[in-house]
């Protein structure tokens, strides 16, 4: 089951560049939350702060607190523990190119020391079914490389890989922006199904996408969160003038 996320006065820097400023936010459990805003507004940095991937960049820095469930991720735990509980799907599909489809899905568990083979088989099957890829690859699980799949299939493979470690939260950083419309709609259907089991945070450039998949939407601008509300409210009756300008296409 998913858990909620409580963000308090989160600030983040790349070098001297103050990319996130005083973000306060409550992301509800078992819902999809969309983050929208123009390029460079800090939404990708924000999701990377939720699984401590931000700090993998040596010049990056972060302050403030993020609670995922009852865990304060910057005080109570190591990055590797958090990343096992908070899965991430990236903008460009990034399967492990030298691994089979099966090994791609099993990678997170295997590398963390999981050795029970029959249980692994089950988890791989369940994860691929959850990511709606099973029927397309079930005959080639160990025969084909993850890199031999199409772009849309690769992205669903990456989702399966993230689901296999049984996270509580799934972060998606523009998961469909490199995909064709058919693959995009498959990913959106998937988000719809997955949010009953996971808390999903999705960064998107596509406002229709946010409207289609998310109950809550946050609008980011220049490193600040301008407005956070139900998706319906943001898209029909935003309280901030800047949000309205953005969603009506006046800039961005």
């Amino acid at each position, binding site marked *: 089951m998913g858990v909620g996320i409580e963000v308090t006065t989160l600030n983040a820097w790349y070098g001297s560049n103050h990319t996130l400023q005083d973000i306060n936010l409550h992301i509800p459990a078992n819902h999809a939350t969309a983050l929208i805003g123009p390029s460079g507004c800090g939404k990708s940095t924000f999701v990377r702060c939720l*699984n401590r*991937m931000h700090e*993998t960049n040596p010049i990056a820095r972060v302050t403030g607190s993020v609670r995922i469930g009852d865990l304060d991720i910057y005080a109570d735990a190591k990055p*590797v*523990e*958090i*990343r*096992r*509980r908070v*899965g*991430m799907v*990236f903008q*460009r599909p*990034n*399967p*492990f*190119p*030298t*691994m*089979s489809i099966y090994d791609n899905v099993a*990678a*997170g568990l295997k*590398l*963390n020391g999981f050795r029970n083979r029959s249980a692994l088989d089950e988890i791989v099957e369940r994860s691929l079914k959850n990511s709606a890829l099973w029927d397309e690859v079930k005959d080639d699980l160990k025969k*084909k*490389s*993850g*890199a*031999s*799949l199409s772009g849309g299939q690769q992205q669903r493979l*990456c989702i399966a*890989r*993230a689901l296999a*470690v049984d996270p509580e939260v799934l972060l998606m950083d523009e998961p469909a922006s490199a995909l064709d419309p058919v693959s995009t709609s498959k990913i959106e259907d998937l988000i719809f199904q997955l949010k009953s089991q996971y808390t999903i945070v999705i960064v998107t450039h596509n406002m229709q996408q946010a409207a289609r998949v998310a109950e809550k939407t946050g609008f980011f601008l220049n490193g600040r969160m301008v407005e956070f509300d139900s998706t319906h409210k943001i898209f029909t009756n935003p309280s901030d003038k800047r949000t309205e300008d953005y969603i009506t296409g006046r800039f961005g």
Partner: protein
Amino acid sequence: MRNEHKLRAKIRALTDGTATGLAILSTVLVVAPLVAIFIYLIYRGASSLSLDFFIKIPKPVGESGGGMANAILGSGILLGLGSLIGVPIGIAGGVFLSEYGRGSALANAVRFTADVLNGVPSIVMGIAIYSLIAVPQMHFSAFSGGVALGIMMIPTVCRTTEEMLLMVPNSVREAALALGVPNWLSVLAITVKTASPGIITGCMLAFARVAGETAPLIFTAFGNVGWSARLNEPIAALPLQIYVYAISPYDEWHRLAWAGALVLIVLIVLAVSLVRYVTSRGVMKGAS
């Protein structure tokens, strides 16, 4: 107007043909020397090959027959020892340069050292190992020869490993880290594995290069006309034996030298192919 179109099409076709022709010509020029050497070696050496060549040791001057079995074994031991030293250190250095030291002063120093080491003439390497190992021990040995070959392998292995690791997209590293895999494990099990075909090519290049080295062995392994597989005694090696036979005044030794050269090349090709075959299993190839 139409004529102009036709003319342009002709010029384009001509340019295309010329470029294709040049590409084919370059390929032939690159491959030709290798093929020529190989054919010439077969022509000069194949007739002297017999079972004796592979199972007997050299006969004293004046007696006919004999083989290079001890030199084949010796080369195997020297190259094995060299690889045991050169491959792990080289790969570890490459991993440091690409995954841990990027941009640091130490990494720049390591990279510079590797490049200089690569440019050190092999005879200098021989003398250096001679004075560092053979002189203190007061005898020549297979061990010192293996060390000399191993050190010569390091820079090639190190720099190709670094280049190949740098070609692994950052997104692959991020994918591993985002799964909660610790960094060291991600480096070993994901990044190095992804780059492994290229890293293996680098190791094979280094291996093939030192397999034919004579100069670093003259003062270290020294050569041996009898059987020896001991690391603390002088040991025979194919390039040394070829050298000794080739500069001798005897016709039969000249023929054996040609045969030795042919065997050396064939063994290198076999070793490289075998390693490629063994290591290619278990690594999937992508569609792209």
